[in-house]
């Protein structure tokens, strides 16, 4: 996010408005536990003779950063941004959804249905729920049925319209997945809705599309998308079908 900088007093400052509470800085940096006053004095001294102290990239000399205790609605930032944080709604770590990955066991996505995972804010830019709402509303108008076990759906006041709770709209997260499914015939309206709404955003989103393989081992959505001029990635995720329900 780039939200940490050294302020005029020589102290690290966090832009709280932009911070997504991913906890990556606490997790990735090794604190050396050096005296902060001494470190600042050394830096000033070195700067006066045009030298600088350059510690390894994964070191925080003073251990200056500590995780805050979060309260609602800011807590939502941590739920969606910290990979090690478990969503209360889904019990899944990360952004909180299993989509096609366990479909061989859950059967959530039936044959003839196509799923979408719209990864808002990805890659790496982050997103506010106000922008997530814009996309969700556009998708609802295009006929999306939002996945009830997805944490973004859990923050909607009305999944039929895609409207989000008012209290989270200004919260920023690293990414959040809008997950939905539609019949195969409705794939193109969804993709076109995404094409249109993308111009209203100041961030990015990555689009995933998934389905069960057909009886002929074909990808059901490939033909309609390619005929409409869309291109599928050569790489993707394959569920091997090795899972089963416990006896």
């Amino acid at each position: 996010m780039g939200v940490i900088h050294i302020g005029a007093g020589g102290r690290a400052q966090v832009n709280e408005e932009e911070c997504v509470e991913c906890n990556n800085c606490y997790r990735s940096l090794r604190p050396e536990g050096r005296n902060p006053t001494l470190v600042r004095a050394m830096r000033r001294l070195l700067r006066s003779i045009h030298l600088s102290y350059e510690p390894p990239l994964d070191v925080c000399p003073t251990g200056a950063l500590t995780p805050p205790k979060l309260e609602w609605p800011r807590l939502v930032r941590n739920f969606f941004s910290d990979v090690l944080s478990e969503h209360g709604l889904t019990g899944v770590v990360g952004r909180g959804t299993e989509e096609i990955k366990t479909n061989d066991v859950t059967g959530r996505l039936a044959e003839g249905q196509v799923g979408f995972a719209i990864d808002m804010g990805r890659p790496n830019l982050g997103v506010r729920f106000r922008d997530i709402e814009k996309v969700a509303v556009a998708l609802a108008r295009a006929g999306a049925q939002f996945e009830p076990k997805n944490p973004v759906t859990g923050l909607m006041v009305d999944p039929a319209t895609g409207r989000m709770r008012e209290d989270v709209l200004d919260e920023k997260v690293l990414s959040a997945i809008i997950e939905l499914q539609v019949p195969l015939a409705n794939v193109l309206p969804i993709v076109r809705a995404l094409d249109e709404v993308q111009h209203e955003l100041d961030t990015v989103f990555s689009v995933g599309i998934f389905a069960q393989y057909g009886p002929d081992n074909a990808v059901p959505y490939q033909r309609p998308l390619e005929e409409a001029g869309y291109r599928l990635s050569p790489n993707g995720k394959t569920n091997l079908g090795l899972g089963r329900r416990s006896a």
Partner: protein
Amino acid sequence: MTNTLHRRGSVEELSHDFVMFAIPARGINDAGCRPKLQQFIRLVLRHGPVNLGDARQGQRHSDDFEKLIAGLTDKSIATATFDNREALLAALREVQAADLGISINVTGLIDTVDGCCREIGRRRHGVEHSLGIKGATDRLPNRNVLAVGTLCGHGMVSFNLIQRVLQLIKLNKLSPAEGAEMLRRPCVCGAFNPERAREILEQMRTLG
């Protein structure tokens, strides 16, 4: 989440990048699955993965596989990353034979994974593709930085960090291998491919 889906690169570059993971379905087959996840990690370890992990634990045990295995729980997602098809195929063969009963997914070139499945007599259940990035794409960095950043779909390897590592490589203060290792550390789930990152950093060292 879809943390391995949107990896970027040419077909040639992606042919060195496969992620296999075992994931229990919450509330359906997760109770008591810890030994199966442990067996999964032991099986894939025989085939030289370039990274291993469990998003529940983070990467604290990334160099101590016994700690990683001991730390697995019923809620874990066990992940192994390979840099070649042969290792993937050998691991797949063993995992299928073990009949663990939990969902196994592979992210990589779809046709290559299909070929591997045919070789082991496996009919695939489902597939997920990327339709790319939309929105304010002018805010994104260049192609190579993006290729490295998308190796961690959770977004833990920031564009700023990649660009800083690249600066240090250009100044000969880090080697591409050291830089790739530095970038691997924030990735908590084991999906980051340090070998592919090293290749990209090596290319970028001499590019403008």
